[in-house]
């Protein structure tokens, strides 16, 4: 049975209540479908992957479905170590978000702005703030979180799965399966 990723949809850091517009939690099928049908998706992964290294492998699995990866902080190291750098680009999350917020940016590959960004493995507060930037200043990009937290400033997110690593991994696997299907 599919993991219920819609439960416990309250901000991971309790007081992160920005205003009237707050993310909705979705199940893996919907999130997978949104990513799959994206024309220009971008998976953005951060340094928290080092705390749960299997996530590197899952990120690579997503990368292999054709979703390019922005490796923020020093997370590129995890990909280098695994020998997967195919469609992985090393870039800071801050400048990346700065590029994303401008409609005229042409993407990491110079082929155009992205339409869906998917965050995972990024320090919660930082990711939340970057989602906020996009939410307020470039609403053309759909903001998706597949991290283990409910991400209030995303468009679509999981609920909090932070305290159940297995279920979280399972959920990610479901997303990957959906993408690979």
């Amino acid at each position, binding site marked *: 049975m599919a993991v219920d990723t819609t439960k416990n949809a309250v901000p991971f850091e309790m007081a992160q209540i920005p*205003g*009237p517009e707050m993310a909705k939690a979705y199940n893996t099928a919907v999130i997978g479908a949104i990513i799959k049908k994206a024309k220009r998706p971008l998976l953005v992964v951060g340094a928290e992957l080092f705390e749960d290294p299997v996530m590197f492998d899952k990120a690579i699995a997503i990368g292999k479905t054709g979703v390019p990866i922005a490796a923020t*902080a020093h997370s590129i*190291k995890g990909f280098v170590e695994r020998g997967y750098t195919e469609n992985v680009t090393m*870039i*800071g999350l*801050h*400048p990346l978000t700065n590029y994303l917020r401008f409609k005229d940016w042409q993407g990491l590959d110079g082929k155009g702005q992205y339409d869906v960004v998917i965050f995972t493995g990024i320090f919660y*507060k930082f990711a939340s703030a970057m989602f906020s930037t996009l939410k*307020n200043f470039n609403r053309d990009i759909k903001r998706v979180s597949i991290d283990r937290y409910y991400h209030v400033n995303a468009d679509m997110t999981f609920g909090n799965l932070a305290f159940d690593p297995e279920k979280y991994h399972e959920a990610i696997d479901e997303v990957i399966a959906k993408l690979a299907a």
Partner: protein
Amino acid sequence: MDKMEGSFAVEDMQNVQINIGAVVKEVEEWDQPMGPFPYPSIATLRNWDFKIMNRYKVFYSPICDRCTLCTYGPCDLTGNKRGACGIDQAAQQGRIVLIAVLMGCTAHAAHGRHLYHWCLDKFGDLPFKMGDEILVDAPLTRTIAGIKPKTLKDFGPVLSYVEEQVSQLLACTHTGQEGNYVDFESKALHAGMLDSLGKEVSDLIQIVAYDMPRGDEDAPLVECGMGTLDKNKAILITYGHNLAGSAEAMFYAEDNKLWDKVDIGGVCCTAIDNTRICEGIGHPDKEFNDKYRMVGTKAKIAGAIGWWRKMVRGDCMDCIMVDEQCVWTDAIVDAEKYKIPLIATNEKIMLGLPDRTNDPVDEIVDDLVNFRMPGVVVLDPVKAGEVGIKTAIAVKPKRAEIREADPFISEEEFKKYAESCTYCHSCQFVCPPHIKIGDVVRAAAEGNLEPLSSTYEICVGCRRCEQVCPQEIPILSLYAYANRDYIRNQKFKMRAGRGPIKDTEIRRVGAPLVLGTIPGVIAIIGCGNYPNGTKECYDIAREFVDRGFIVAATGCMAMDMSLYTDAEGKTIWEQFPGGFDGRNICNVGSCVANAHLHGAGIKVATIFAGRNERANYDDIADYILSKVGACGVAWGAYSQKAASIATGFNRLGVPAVVQSHSVMYRRAFLGRTDKKEDWEIIDARDGSKVYCEPAPEHMLYVAESVEECMLMMAKLCFRPSDNNSGRMIKLTHYCDISMKYFGCMPPDWPIYVRHASDLPLKWKEDMLKELESKYGWEIDWKRKAIVSGPIRKSDVSFDPTNIERKIRVKK
């Protein structure tokens, strides 16, 4: 201009007294003509700000989508909505940024104003002298105000200027005033500049009045850490940023030979300033000088603000004096709970306590010692100091009598609490550094204290976990219990704050800095908080000092990095000399002292490059932006002061890197390397425009990890003025850090290459190949030379500027 004040009588005028406001004489010592912008107003430097912001895009991350400031609100500003007053989200964020920067700016300026009044009261007006090695003695004051102070009183008009501008700027945040984010940010940059000025004035006043070190690279090593507080004595903790009351406590202890009965430990910047007192070139008041020579070395540095609640739970104090800024407001709650009398010594923090300023010392002490009130206000620093010492000594035995006064919990309590955890994760939901508190407590219940030890430094003591714990487990007390030995043994050495950078040092490093052969100045400023700021302060400092950068620290991060030693047991201060030079690390002083780092930049322009600094802010800032490879870092800054500090550095052309949780500041300045037109720089020789590499690429940057921070700082030290050797050195460090922590080369290294001699020797061959194969550059393999490809060609006499009036030959 040289000013004196006084009064004299005029005979023919009856009943008249003439106060001389200012005797103005043409000053022979300073032959600099007045520059274009003395005492700049809001709009004066707006053009410069717009230049900065055209290159470094204002970037906002709203933390709250609503505005609740006027009665039309709350207004939802999400996306492209405007509030009832017409404001949009960007302008609202700019407004909040301006308010925050003003809060920070006034925290420093008001501190300076208090010291100004107090020092004039205590010492009278004193000659302002920085010693023979510092002739450019108040660089921000000169650059911004266009004056050259001769006595402490000359700083009065400078403070008045700051206050007038602050009032103008705060007015702009009123609903229905400024409405465009760019102008809000120009105003914030103005406030940041005022902040730097206020800091300079504050530190210069205390340096002169309290005879602190004036650029002394051999400033004494002082004791630092909770373990340095001698529990056989009464412990008086002085907490905050303003030494006035604390210094008096030290003088009282000295006068009355009480150092064997009392230890004075400072928390936050007061700690640093305590340890600078009377270590300078000599106080003009000989009696004072003789009496208190080196008294600063008797004070201890208890620790940085992030350690406050750990000290409380670690039973490190008998009495608290608070002054101003960075004082956790529940100090009084803990004081009452743990029977630690508290004396509030400054109008800014009075905590609802009774004002006992006009009562006799012994009555106040008696009330405190008998716990009739948890704290008092005593606004006279002399009286406060005496009350503090007497209370600490008298209350110590009383506190010992009372069990609750000891915040340490017993072994049974520890076990009971740890076992009561239901593993509900409420704590982890709110922990800023995301410590897995549930796991930590569960391990403790099973007898394994290691997790409590290994996360002790990471914990910022915010107390959120305790507040949300449904079992009411005093988690900080579990930490204190498990780290009893660590607390007792936390004993280190830190170098006392040396004050300004000397002219001689600037002469030595000026050329290498501008050419890049000293790869940069790493300014470590503010406080180190979560995640893991304390340890990472040390890591950053160590990384760069090892690499030959000039490393300069101030404030709480200077304390935090003192808590680590090398294999030989030496702290970083003992490992490296304290000059302003490559492979040196200097502690400049408390937070207000970081103005001397702005000052160092100005002095490179004026001493090394011969620029006139007088009332010439934008020219100097332009010089620094284009030619002085410096980068600040606040690795865990929490406060509005950090916002104003960073903003002040940015206006002066110095980039800064901050930690992830600094997204709470809401605003950054980020460059776009895909916009060639943003990086057009003027060649001052002929006014021609040159597309440059993005150097520096960003002005205010949030890094996600310490690894990214270090890489980015190395990169942000690039400057257009680097010569080939300098660029090669900088590129070497940039690529080397990337290889070390990222496992690969940074993808943008080619944009910094102008000439083959810019290439690091160890990768030169490979890099040339890659430039050819991957980037399509034309390489002359015979000469190992680059024929075409770079953004611009290497040109040793290129004179980069962003200011039209600097063009020497008009086209």
